[in-house]
Structure formats: C-alpha cells, structure tokens
C-alpha cells in the first residue's frame, strides 16, 4: 500500500461487503485486477479503488472532435423495441441513445453509469442502487427512480414478451423492484445473488432506462434515452444516424455525426471497409474475415470473451450414459490445434466447464484437460466398448460450427466412435426450443452456440441444472445443483473461486458437455479511427470516436 491514508479513507466509506473485498486485496488473495473487477461488483467506486492501487482510473479522451463515424452493423432482425430486442443489430441501436445503470467494460469491470453507487445487504438478497441526479431524457423529462423501476420491472414481467425474462427468472420478480426515494431503488431478489449488478448492467442489453410509462413498441420512433447521442434518422432495414445530445450529463460526444449502416452479411461489410465506405465493423468472425486479420491497413480490436460452443452428450441415452465414454470423447480433442485452426489462435482453451479463463472467479489451478488417446481407449475398453460405437451429432450451420463438427468426428474415429453428422439450419436445430420439439434439446449429441456473458451464472444454470431449460445433455446431479446454488449466492470472491474449483472438478469428471474453447470478440476499424470502444456483448460506444 503506497498511501496509508488512502485505504483508511476507503475503509470509512465502504460497507461490510466492500470492506471484505478490500481485506481480500490486502491479504493478497486477489490481485489488482481481481480488486478492480470484484470491487466494482460491490459498488466500490473507481476513485476508492484507484487510491488503493495507487493509480487514477480515468478515461482518456484524446481524438479530434467533429468527425463523421460510419459503422457497419448487422441488420436488426426486428423492431427496435427495448423489451423484445434479441439480436446484435438491435442491441447496438438501443445502446446508442439508451443508457444502463451500470456499464460492463470490455475487461468485465463494472462502471457506474445511471447508477452512481450500489451495495448489497449481507446475504446478497437486497441490492440498493443510488440513481444519478441531474440526468435528462432526450424528450426533456428528468430521470428519477420511477423510470428505473418501470424499465427494469417490465423486463422481469412474464406478461410482456420480454427477451430478458430468461435472465431475471428465478432471480427477480417485477414486484421486487421498489422505489425508496426519488433517487434510490431497491431490488429484492427471489434468492441471494452475488453477481446481481451484472443483470442490470450493459451485459443485459435490454436493460436501458426509458421514461416511466413509455410504450416499448413506440421506442423506435423516438429512441428516447439519456445517452451521449440522440437520434437523427432511423430507416428500418437500412440504418440510423445520430448526433450529439447537447443536454448529456457526462462529457459531450466527440463525433459530429455517427452513421450506423445495416449489413446483411459479414462479407459485404468487410468489402465496404476495404473499399473505404465504412470506418468500423461492429463484429467480425475469423471465418470469412481472414483478409482483414492479415491486412496491415485494418486495425483489429481483440477482446477476451466467454463466447463458446457447447458439445452436449445425452447422459440418459447410450452410449453416453457411461461417464467414461463422455470422458473418452473429450480426451480425443487436440484443443490447441483446434483453436489454432479455427480461430488463428484468437481463443482460450476450454476445460469442459463454463468457467472461462476470462472470469475472475475461475479456479485456474484446476488442471487443463489435454488430448490423451491411450487413456481414452482405456476408458472405452473399461466401458465395454473397445469394439467401437456409433452416434449421431446434430448441429447448426453457423460460422465455424460445421468445421468443428468435422474435427470432432475425426478425433472420435481414433477411439472407434463413429460419428454421423447431421448439420441443419439454426431454425431447424433450435426448433420450438422446448423438450420434445427441438433437435438442440433432444439430440443424442450436438453443438450449440452460446454468446458472451460477463458472469458464468446463466451458463451454469440453464444448460446444466437438473431444472435447467436448456439442458441438452439431460444432466441431473444433485451435488452439482447445490454447488451452483452456493456459488450464485456467494458475495465473496474467494468463496466463489473455491466453489468454482469444486464445480470445475465435478464437471471434468462427469463431462456432460465438452467446452472446447472460448473465442475472442473481434471488431475491425480503419487505421485512422481512434476512440471506438466495443465489448464482447457486441455493443459499440462511439462517444469518444474520431476519424482521421
């Protein structure tokens, strides 16, 4: 500690949970990054944490003002409605003029936005948020707690057709959102949750704050939010343009104009960047963008993420009823080679649990599973399958997934597992998305795409809990269920990490799902573009951007 005064002062401001995070840091249980990330969850302010680590946490804004920034984004699949948006084209539009209580930065550190501070009671069941004062909606109304209650409660309401319901279900009921005073809101949770702030952060891309009583269906006419930009024009199917919001509460936006243009596919966006007709591409996949990744005329923004594919094996259908067969399957994969081949190395290795290396709570001391064909053959023999077996792997035609399926097919052949591939459109694969009506949930073996989350909670629950609604592996394990319950409830990083270690070990042993890799989020800009900030949710923050 470089300045005793700093931490004494921090102690005075901090509540009990926050003090515990400071203890963890001082005891050396967590490092600087751990302090920043975990402290931010419990509402330790940047100023306090900056004082503790002896470095100011300030955002530099260097570029020249007045540019026009042209961004290629994916065509939104539907109306720009904060309650129903479920695609990366729609969510990036929401976030241009709308703001969240909290911003989840690319490094997974929570940063105050419309909430100035937040804190939990001791068991993590009630979270109190202080709402920023002096914030004006573009329509002129001042922001109060009523707007926050309205915006969040309707997302948790099963009657609203809300896309965010699956995130809030079992965590927050609409009646649990309570106004305390004009600038304080309490969230009374259904169960303790140590990572609740992520659910009202930019991670939950539907959770922008809109004026109380406003009609979600009419949002696309006004884009009424509190952000650094306001809507200039919006043409469905084509694009939207924005200009700075003169009444913005924070630093004014640098660009004079931003143009977000819709592209139906990656290839045309890549060509437009190469042809000089856009300055930024919201997101690129390695497949089909090799030309950009190798091009010195293009800057790639590369962020670690928890985006991944789950290879499920039905634990209730032979031959995968025997965990030794599942383990053997997982042991055939040469993960470093897969990451190199499919992603040019721009991905982390997966260790057959949702704990991606990017999460602070991941226990990195759990040994990485590596290819071991002899051991796999031994396990097959022990399971009575030394003569081999045959399974069907069903999956969707999406990005690298068909290639991954072929790699798995080849790997499995080495131990006598013959895999028949069934590759179909995403629509056909997901079907009705309920058990009995979906190849995703019913297939013997399959590969499913999962987008980035700032915390592993959703990955731990829906695809793996006995009661999970996306449990393709039909995995049912009471020990696992109770470990996840205690992980979720825990407000203490060291406890979270200890529990994570147990979950990781259990899943390595059971292997209901192979997590082969977690791949990086990539965006591209022209070389003369500065100040564009993106995160792995696919949000693009342009307030500090300049061109030229």
């Amino acid at each position: 500690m470089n300045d005793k005064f700093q931490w004494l002062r921090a102690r005075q401001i901090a509540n009990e949970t926050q003090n515990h995070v400071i203890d963890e840091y001082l005891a050396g249980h967590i490092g600087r990054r751990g302090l920043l990330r975990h402290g931010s969850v419990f509402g330790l302010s940047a100023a306090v944490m900056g004082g503790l680590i002896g470095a100011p946490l300030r955002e530099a804004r260097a570029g020249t003002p007045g540019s026009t920034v042209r961004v290629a984004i994916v065509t939104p699949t539907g109306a720009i409605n904060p309650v129903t948006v479920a695609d990366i084209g729609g969510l990036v539009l929401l976030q241009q003029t709308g703001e969240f209580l909290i911003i989840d930065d690319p490094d997974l550190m929570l940063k105050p936005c419309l909430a100035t501070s937040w804190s939990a009671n001791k068991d993590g069941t009630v979270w109190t948020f202080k709402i920023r004062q002096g914030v004006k909606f573009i329509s002129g109304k001042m922001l109060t707690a009523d707007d926050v209650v309205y915006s969040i409660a309707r997302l948790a309401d099963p009657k609203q057709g809300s896309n965010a319901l699956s995130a809030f279900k079992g965590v927050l009921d609409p009646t649990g959102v309570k106004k305390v005073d004009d600038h304080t809101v309490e969230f009374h949770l259904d169960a303790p949750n140590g990572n609740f702030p992520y659910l009202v952060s930019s991670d939950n891309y539907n959770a922008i704050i809109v004026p109380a009583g406003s009609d979600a269906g009419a949002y696309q006419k006004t884009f009424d939010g509190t952000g650094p930009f306001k809507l200039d024009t919006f043409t469905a199917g084509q694009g939207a343009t924005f200009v700075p919001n003169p009444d913005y509460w924070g630093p004014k936006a640098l660009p004079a104009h931003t143009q977000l243009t819709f592209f139906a596919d990656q290839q045309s966006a890549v060509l437009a960047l190469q042809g000089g007709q856009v300055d930024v591409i919201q997101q690129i996949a390695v497949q089909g963008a090799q030309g950009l990744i190798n091009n010195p005329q293009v800057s790639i923004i590369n962020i670690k993420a928890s985006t991944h594919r789950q290879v499920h094996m039905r634990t209730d259908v032979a031959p995968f009823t025997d965990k030794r067969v599942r383990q053997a399957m997982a042991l055939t994969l040469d993960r470093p080679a897969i990451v190199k081949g499919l992603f040019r190395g721009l991905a982390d290795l997966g260790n057959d649990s949702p704990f991606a290396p990017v999460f602070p709570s991941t226990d990195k001391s759990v040994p990485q599973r590596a290819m071991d064909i002899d051991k796999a053959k031994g396990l097959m023999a022990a399971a009575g399958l030394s003569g081999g077996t045959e399974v069907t792997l069903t999956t969707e035609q999406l990005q690298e997934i068909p290639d991954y399926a072929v790699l798995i097919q080849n790997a499995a052949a080495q131990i006598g597992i013959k895999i028949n591939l069934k590759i179909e459109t995403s629509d056909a694969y997901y079907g009705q998305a309920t058990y009995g009506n979906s190849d995703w949930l019913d297939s013997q073996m399959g590969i499913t795409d999962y987008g980035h989350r700032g915390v592993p909670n959703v990955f731990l629950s829906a695809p793996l809990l006995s009661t999970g609604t996306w449990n393709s592996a039909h995995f049912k394990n009471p020990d696992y269920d109770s470990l996840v319950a205690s992980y979720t409830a825990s407000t203490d990083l060291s406890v979270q990490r200890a529990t994570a270690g147990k979950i990781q070990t259990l899943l390595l042993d059971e292997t209901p799902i192979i997590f082969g890799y977690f791949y990086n989020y990539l965006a591209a800009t022209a070389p003369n573009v500065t100040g564009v900030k993106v995160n792995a949710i696919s949000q693009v923050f342009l307030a500090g951007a300049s061109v030229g």
Partner: protein
Amino acid sequence: MGRQLANLLAKRLSISLLTLLLLSVLVFAGGQLLPGNVGRAILGPLADAASVAALNHKLGTDLPVPVMYWRWISHFVTGDFGTSYSFQLPVAPFIGHALFNSLKLAGVAFVIVVPLSIFGGVYAAMHARSWIDKVISISGLSMTVIPEFVSSIAFILIFGVWLNWLPVSATAPAGAGPLVQVYHLILPSMPLVFILFGYIARMARAGTVEALDSDYTRTAVLKGLTWRVVIFRHVLRNALLPTITVVATQLGYLVGGLVVVESLFRYQGIGSLILTAARGKDFPMLEAGILTVGAIYVLATVGADVLYTVLNPRLRGGGR
C-alpha cells in the same frame, strides 16, 4: 385487332389474378411448415417460453392459420398491406421503397445489357462462324455460368477495392441526385450483365441467322433494297421476336430475384426484403413482397405477349 387484343388481355389478366391468389395461399401454407413461430423468431431460441407466448399473443400470431390468413387477405384486397410482425411498422412503405430500388437497379442493368447483347448477337450472326462470332458466343456462354456471388466479389475487388473506381455499395448517400445514384448502381449491374448477356445474345444471334437465311430476306436483297433497310425493316423485326419474350421473362428475375447481389452490394431491394421476411416468419411482409414480384412476372409475361402480338404480323389483323 383492337378487340382481339382486349380479349387476350382480359383473359390473361384474370388468369394472372387467380395465379397470384393461389400463390398467396401457397406462401401462407408453406410458411407454416417452417420450424418456429414469429415470437420465437423475434426473441431467439434462448428466450423464455412465457415471453414467446406473451409476444405471440400481442402480435396475434397465436391464432389458427385460416383465421390469420383471412385477416390478412381481407385487408390486403382493400389495399391495406398490414403491419410487419418483425418491424412493427406498416408494410406498404417497405414494399414501395424496395420496389423502387429494385426497379432502379433492374433499369440500369436493363439499359446496359439489352442493347449490348442484342447488338452482340446480331453482329455475331452477321459474321457467323468468324472468329468474332466465336468470341461473342463462347464468352457469352462462359459469363452466363458464373454465379453472381463469384462475379460480384470479383467486380467488387477489382473495381471497388483495388482500382477504387466505383463505389462498392449500391446505396447512394442520402439526398444524392439521379446521376450519383446511377453511378452507385453500375458495379452491381455488372454481374447481371454477365448473367444475361450470353443468354440474350444467343437468342438474338439464332433469330438473326434464321432471318438472314429466309426467303423474304433473299427477296428483299434481290429487289435491290439497301443493306440497312434489309436489316432494320426485314431481318431484325422478325429475328428479335423470340428475344423480346426472353427479355420480358428476365424482367421478373431482374426485379425480384437479386437476393445475392442485393446482399453483397448492400442494397435494399425486394429480393432481400423477401429473404428477411421469410427468416423472421413475417407473413404480412413476405406475402406482400412475393405477390409484388409475382405481379411483376405476370405483367412482364402479359406485356411480352402483347408486344409479340403487336410486332408479329402473323398474329395481327382479323381472323385467320
């Protein structure tokens, strides 16, 4: 001739209306075979089932199929195209805008390819079996078999990225004048010119070769008409009749079938509108889009028939 033409038109148009009605039923019924539903298409596979049900109820897409169809068609015949399920906006402006765009692109491609290919075909016929004939025929045929996604990317890379002569986006900046808009449409027209040139040129060549060999041409030459009069008054008028039919049937494709080109050049035409609507199970949009393209096919075919009748002396004039 007038009454005969009117009869023909009336007959053709009533059959066309029936065709379009059947088409609308097929699209609605066919769409039901696709997996998923509107709410699921909007909210994605990971959304909670309760949310999907609530959204379908709000949109009215949880009703029985015949009821949904009746609701749609009873409004459609009165000129009300309805509201898009996906965009929650009226369908008509989408169709109008996309149709206008498609017509512009088709128009530019048409203006380039029709004179070029007819000239090429006639020129080849007049120099039949010479090297120039072979060059036109073989290159035309080769260009036709190159898929649009291949030629489009090649054109974009060569003219848009390397040489930087033409813009790679078909959409001109907002407020651009007609000339700038045409400038943006040149590059996207080129793959279409590639596809159509060989086809139309071959038809024109075959017709011209046949006409040049005919008795009436020999007569015309022998009675001492100038070469120019022989070609324009006797040869071309007969030679180009089949070509006109071919060109007319390609109009529907040029307006409604350019999904690949529209997507690569980022152009909001009716082809990509239909594709988006089909993906989102957005029936009001899908029906309106397909019926618009269907109507264009039908009108182009009827128009070709009429033109054929007007131009063909054998189908003109009273009884037979």
